[in-house]
């Protein structure tokens, strides 16, 4: 039975450890390999034992696909490929390939240096893992082998994020990863064509939220910055080099201009260099607006935003500074934080998730006293704001995407099926598709009906047509032929039996069946035969019934002859004979005749 099997790996229902196993057309693909950021032990990794039970991962899996660089989608990759063991190809987009190792290394440093973890992947492992990566372009069909192909679609969300279509023959699955349906300041909206996959796999968390508009989030950010600057305070915004930082800069620049603010805005140069470098490489990934600004002028030639110098941190008066790294775990942003933390007029705005062990994580948990190196205690009096800028789809967005792709079925991961009855009904009703919600570790099996194209020989087709009585939907006609599978596995031909025999070099044999039906009739054979003829003629209106001069009756190619019984003059024996090709009609006639003939009018 052809089927597609999907198993989300890992324990627990929460978002934060994306890793999905898909079996399609005999191929096995792993989608994403994420880390659960909330755990410190083995629970943060997906449960690979599910697959390793079947032997070596490299033999079992045909490929691994990574949707984007967030750690909850790629954080477990080096562990998986170097410590568990996988040597096959790992597919991702070019920007993901460039950014992933940086985030993984950052994460490794925090885990090992800050938290002193022992059994963690090393820098060399990250490098070895990345050597297995095959980068792909958007909308490029990539042949993993001669049966499995994949294609990446633009997902929005972050730089390099993609949705992937996985195809084997006529069966396909689309995995969305994280995506968003509304464009933001530096990225476009996700888009997919009407590819009609058998299955669309996406996150359930989106389907149950109604997202606050991007403009309101930006407004909140501007308000906080404005209020702080108005009261003479300093705003620190720790950022990763790419993506969100540029967006926030554009936002502030526009605002500063409009409101005619004078406070300086600084951007640390390390950020500028890295960002420029990446943007040059991946300019096609951002939206039109950014591309225009980049082409017209250097990304960072803002009117109001200047390059930062360490010494400026001690300047009096209000200012806004963007600095790396994003989680306040080291470097410039941490230095500035230490200088400004003690003043309640100041503010730090964290634009995203922080890994456990970092200063960012601690202050976001509400900690106000931090132990720094050398047992020094830092009292945090500055205001701490946690803002989430990452763009996700929501209930409306998910419906839009399903409407675009037109899948046969939808599968939602990371949700509790019982709590999502309404959602399931909504999707099923709106699109008339099945909706599945497996728990982690649970396998969903989708039966599919792959279409197998068969070519029919012209000779056979013509011959069947010549027999008259064209088939229609209500009365299909039985056609005899031989199915030949030649050369490659995927080519089927339907030819006439004679042609097949000829190709095989075999002689044709005829098979004929004969059956005797006893009838109670004391008249002469010829009269019995005539009765049989008139009976069959009236019953079998669609068939060619003939009464031959020698007394026998034919129905198509079936021959019926009446003979006297050797011992009993009151009984006649009907000999019904047919070829193998007319088996069905032959059996039908036999049972019909066994029922007896209608009484002749006297």
């Amino acid at each position: 039975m052809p089927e597609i099997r999907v198993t989300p790996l890992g324990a627990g229902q929460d978002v934060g450890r994306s890793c999905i196993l898909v079996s399609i057309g005999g191929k096995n693909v792993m989608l994403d390999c994420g880390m659960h950021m909330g755990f410190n032990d083995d629970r943060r990794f997906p449960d690979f034992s599910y697959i390793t039970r079947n032997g070596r991962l490299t033999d079992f899996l045909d490929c691994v696909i990574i949707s984007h660089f967030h750690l909850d989608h790629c954080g477990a990759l080096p562990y998986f490929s170097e410590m568990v063991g996988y040597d096959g190809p790992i597919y991702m987009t070019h920007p993901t390939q460039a950014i992933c190792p940086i985030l993984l290394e950052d994460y490794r440093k925090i885990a090992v240096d800050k938290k002193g973890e022992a059994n963690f992947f090393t820098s060399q492992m990250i490098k070895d893992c990345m050597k297995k990566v095959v980068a792909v372009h958007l909308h490029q069909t990539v042949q993993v082998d001669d049966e499995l192909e994949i294609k990446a679609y633009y997902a929005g969300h972050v730089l390099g994020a993609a949705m992937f279509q996985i195809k084997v023959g006529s069966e396909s699955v689309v995995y969305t990863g994280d995506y968003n349906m509304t464009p933001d300041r530096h990225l476009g909206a996700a888009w997919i064509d009407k590819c009609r996959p058998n299955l669309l796999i996406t996150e359930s968390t989106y389907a149950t939220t109604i997202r606050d508009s991007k403009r309101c989030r930006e407004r909140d950010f501007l308000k906080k910055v404005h209020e702080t600057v108005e009261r003479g305070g300093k705003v620190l915004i720790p950022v990763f080099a790419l993506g969100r930082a540029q967006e926030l800069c554009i936002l502030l620049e526009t605002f500063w201009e409009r409101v005619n603010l004078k406070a300086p805005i600084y951007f640390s140069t390390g950020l500028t260099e890295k960002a420029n470098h990446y943007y040059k490489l991946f300019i096609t990934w951002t939206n039109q607006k950014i591309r225009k600004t980049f082409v017209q002028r250097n990304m960072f030639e803002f009117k109001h935003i200047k390059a930062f110098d360490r010494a400026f941190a001690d300047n009096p008066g209000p200012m806004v500074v963007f600095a790396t790294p994003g989680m306040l775990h080291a470097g410039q942003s941490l230095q500035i934080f230490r200088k400004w933390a003690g003043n309640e007029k100041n503010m730090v705005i964290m634009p995203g998730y922080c890994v456990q062990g970092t200063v960012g994580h601690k202050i976001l948990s509400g900690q106000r006293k931090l132990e720094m190196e050398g047992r020094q205690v830092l009292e945090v009096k500055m205001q701490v704001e946690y803002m989430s800028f990452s763009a996700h789809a929501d209930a409306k967005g998910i419906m839009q995407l399903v409407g675009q792709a037109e899948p046969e079925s939808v599968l939602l991961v990371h949700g509790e099926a019982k709590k999502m009855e309404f959602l399931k009904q909504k999707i099923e009703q709106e699109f008339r598709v099945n909706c599945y919600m497996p728990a982690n570790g649970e396998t969903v099996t989708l039966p599919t009906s792959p279409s197998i194209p068969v070519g029919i020989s012209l000779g056979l087709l013509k011959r069947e047509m010549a027999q008259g009585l064209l088939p229609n939907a209500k009365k299909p006609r039985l056609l005899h032929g031989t199915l030949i599978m030649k050369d490659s596995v995927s080519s089927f031909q339907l030819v006439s039996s004679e042609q097949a025999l000829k190709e095989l070099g075999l002689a044709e044999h005829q098979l004929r069946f004969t059956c005797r039906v006893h009838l109670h009739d004391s008249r002469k054979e010829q009269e019995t035969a005539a009765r049989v003829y008139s009976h069959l003629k009236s019953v079998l209106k669609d068939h060619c019934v003939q009464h031959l001069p020698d007394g026998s009756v034919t129905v198509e190619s079936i021959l019926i002859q009446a003979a006297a019984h050797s011992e009993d003059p009151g009984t006649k024996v009907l000999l019904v004979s047919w070829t193998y090709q007319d088996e069905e009609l032959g059996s039908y006639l036999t049972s019909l005749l066994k029922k007896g003939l209608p009484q002749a009018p006297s």
Partner: protein
Amino acid sequence: MEPAEDWLVESLRLYQDFHAFDLSEATRVLEWIGDKGVFVAGYESRKKNEILHLTLPFRLSVKENQGLFPERDFKVRHGGFSDRPVFDLKHVPDTRLLVTSGLPGCYLQVWQVAEDSDVIQAVSTIAVHEKEGHLWPRVAIFSSVAPGILHGVRLSSLKIVDLESQKTMYTSGVSDSDELSSLQVLDAHTFAFCCTSGRLGLLDTRQKWAPSENLSPCPGSGGGRWCAEVGGRGQGPGPHIASLGSDGQLCLLDCRDLSHPVSSVQCAVSTPSPAPELLRVTWAPGLDNCLAVSGFDGTVQVYDVTSWDGMGGQAEPLFTHRGHVFLDGNGIDTAPLVTTHTWHPQKPRTLLSAASDASLHVWDWVDLRASC
């Protein structure tokens, strides 16, 4: 795009907090459940409508450390499907039941909000023996151990039905055919009604029909359509009933003497209202003498009625919410119309408003007088 950007910059000064959402379908209903959840429901006539129970973003309910909660989204906590449009929805307090009204208007639908799943299920109906075409019954709930459903299309068909037994506990017993525009339960035995003509009254259900009422609507009103709301009793002295007409007139009345309105003003709106059935006037539960008005255009206006006296003067709103006009993301020519609004039960200056373009706003406005 420009006006939207300008308005957003302005909004930094005008609002303490502002959230904007896009529902998949517009709602005419905003009904609270506790102070953390609201119900919304679609009102399209040609397709299935959704009834949703939404929980507010957590940060709106926390008192301290608001800044540490980045979540700004609504969560769809429960949902159900209605075959007919929903024009009114009331939650039966202390239960998991809802009552909705729509067209055709010959019955009310009772729903149950599931406890262990996310489904809102239709459970029973309450017959309304009127075949009134395009009219639908207004609903209000007498909450008690045995809840009673007050409903009616006209004064003559006003009834209270016991929810569980469906027995009629009270009927108006009059033949007046005045069409009802709102019903409001005030306490265990009293309710208020307002007719589209502007006729309003307060009734004690323990007595036979003997409302204290104004027999004629506010002076100077030449017809039009009216609705009204009675403010909370413990709100201090002053008139407690506000009556709003589709021509923009707003009358204040005192419960003790309904036949002589205390004051009447002309609201600063473009009139007449293009959709008088959507008119809404509500008293602020957390502010003295403040009320909100919507149903004329894409705005919600807040008025301070202290020191209103006399008849017929122009009133200036204390605050006007223009978000639905400026953030109309679709760029369609017709400006959206605010379909309903409601005050947050706890936060004094926070309101929710919904518009015909399916937008839903949560806004906390700044009282600019206080900042002087």
